[in-house]
């Protein structure tokens, strides 16, 4: 059997992980880092090949035994975001890890996490999906507590671990219920033969809750602000930018297979989305720590994605799915950038001078004059997150809004109006941060701040450019988001 190129998208990072570890162990951490970087960049080659095959409308699939991995639009989108963010984060973390113990473990786990997330996005078997999900989760726990000397990291790690494990056991219970009822685990087969029954309905609820813990659906979100704020900044970027989104993909895959069981899951997504937006925004409002504020804002951004996807599921509006996935992509880049920039400031202002307390918003005062590049990038990211045109975040929210309006259903229009209101008010916490950055007076910590290494500035610059470019030419990524949107609609069927 010919092994299709996309398998290398998964194997390259997964097999690369032990390699990187060994290189780091036996030779040097520096070499290990460059190996990791090289592997991740090399993964773009199979990506290009897969993209081409996909564009030719070939079925890109690979079976081992009875388990099949298959690429569709959603997997391509997720893979693109992973392959963009992960190498940048390897580069970004280089300086903070230099000389620290275990940099090779960090990079190896980063690779493993990337590989398992790509695998997750390709899974077509319910149990296989869970297993990839579990692999992603285990690597992410360990990355959250990478700085295990700090009590706060441990605290966040413990909460993350316990809540995630509860969620994953619930998913597993759902898998068991599905197996008991239908005797198959293949998502395609399930889609064809699932019929409404209390057992499958309970399974739906278990999937929603189990994956919902990872996505941080309110009220399952309590771990997120701790984990995302306490993790090393590069990991925070990855967690907020992509890990919670892969949870969303897993949820969509599982629920889409059971569409026949419950026609109301689109409404469920919309309602959860509305609650997430509101609660995320309200909780972000009083925050005084930069990273914690960003973490809470992730909760509300998941809400926008859910709104777009919910519109697609309820009304069959492809624009909604496209908008939801577009927001997934832009949020990945913007939140990634925001965390990287905040992390760079945290490094320059605190960590580099051996202060391990969190960075507060007040301490940002005047940092714009000391770190112009980082400050401008942070501003772009924050304003983009707040939906100020013409940045990327506005474009994706705008598509969701249009989808809701275009559906011509009053309920959906109500939901998008609520989303617009939330977006409008979210600036109440983004804007003061921007203003603080460009204040004239430098805070004491800014005056003592250390300069930032090139390896930190470069990823920030690249991501900032990407956001501005996507904002000005959203057409660049339309093919990705369109593919993902069509993929979702084709599996739930146009009702």
């Amino acid at each position, binding site marked *: 059997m010919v092994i299709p190129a996309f398998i290398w998208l998964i194997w390259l990072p997964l097999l690369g992980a032990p390699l990187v570890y060994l290189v780091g162990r036996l030779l040097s951490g520096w070499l290990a880092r460059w190996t990791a970087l090289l592997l991740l960049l090399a993964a773009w080659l199979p990506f290009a090949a897969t993209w081409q095959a996909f564009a030719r409308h070939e079925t890109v699939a690979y079976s081992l035994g009875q388990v099949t991995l298959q690429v569709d639009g959603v997997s391509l989108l997720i893979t693109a975001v992973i392959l963009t963010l992960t190498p940048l984060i390897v580069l970004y973390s280089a300086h903070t890890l230099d000389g620290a113990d275990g940099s090779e473990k960090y990079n190896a786990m980063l690779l493993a996490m990337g590989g398992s997330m790509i695998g997750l996005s390709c899974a077509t078997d319910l149990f296989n999906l869970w297993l990839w999900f*579990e692999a992603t989760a285990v690597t992410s*726990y360990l990355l959250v507590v990478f700085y295990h000397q700090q009590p706060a990291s*441990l*605290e966040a790690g*413990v909460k993350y*671990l316990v809540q995630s494990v509860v969620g994953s056991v619930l998913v597993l219970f759902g898998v068991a219920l*599905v197996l*008991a009822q239908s005797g198959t685990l293949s998502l395609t087969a399930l889609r064809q033969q699932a019929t409404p029954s209390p057992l499958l309905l309970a399974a739906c609820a278990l999937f929603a809750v189990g994956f919902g813990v990872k996505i941080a659906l309110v009220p399952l979100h309590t771990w997120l602000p701790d984990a995302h704020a306490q993790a090393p900044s590069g990991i925070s970027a990855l967690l907020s930018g992509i890990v919670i989104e892969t949870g969303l993909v897993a949820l969509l895959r599982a629920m889409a297979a059971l569409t026949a069981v419950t026609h109301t899951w689109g409404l469920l997504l919309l309602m959860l989305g509305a609650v997430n937006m509101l609660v995320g925004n309200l909780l972000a409002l*009083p925050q005084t720590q930069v990273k914690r504020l960003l973490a809470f804002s992730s909760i509300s951004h998941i809400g926008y994605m859910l709104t777009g996807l919910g519109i697609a599921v309820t009304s069959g509006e492809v624009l909604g799915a496209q908008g939801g996935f577009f927001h997934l992509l832009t949020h990945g880049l913007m939140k990634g950038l925001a965390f990287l920039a905040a992390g760079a400031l945290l490094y320059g202002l605190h960590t580099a001078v051996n202060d391990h307390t969190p960075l507060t918003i007040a301490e940002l005062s005047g940092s714009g004059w000391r770190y112009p590049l980082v400050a401008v990038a942070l501003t772009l990211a924050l304003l983009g997150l707040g939906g100020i045109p013409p940045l990327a975040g506005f474009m994706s929210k705008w598509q969701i809004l249009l989808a809701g309006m275009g559906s011509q259903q009053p309920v959906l229009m109500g939901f998008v109006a609520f989303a617009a209101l939330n977006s409008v008010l979210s600036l109440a916490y983004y804007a003061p941060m921007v203003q603080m950055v460009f204040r004239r007076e430098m805070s004491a910590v800014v005056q003592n701040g250390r300069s930032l290494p090139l390896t930190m500035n470069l990823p920030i610059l690249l991501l900032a450019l990407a956001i501005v470019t996507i904002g000005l030419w959203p057409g660049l990524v339309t093919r990705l988001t369109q593919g993902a949107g069509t993929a979702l609609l084709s599996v739930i069927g146009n009702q």
Partner: protein
Amino acid sequence: MTQTTVLLLGAVGVLGVGLYGLLRLRNLIQIIVALQILAKAAVLALVVAGKASGHVNLGQSLAVTVIVADTVIAVVGLALAVQVRRRLGTLDVKALATLRG
């Protein structure tokens, strides 16, 4: 009521015990015990489900995978608990509530 139903209900019961433990316990290692109990429930449920649908061997192989995965989780959790004990001097999760609001 058939044997499979009884066992499946039993699995739900064990799940409930685990959840109860997570709500009530304060000792981190004991919380990991509760997580293990949850995992037992899932293992049992998978095999019973396989049996009920006539794919007992499929259920078995999934269950083996789950046992392995949950052992990894137990190891990670225990290592974390040991670290917590070393850094904070206690296993009480109440001490792990500095991040809030």
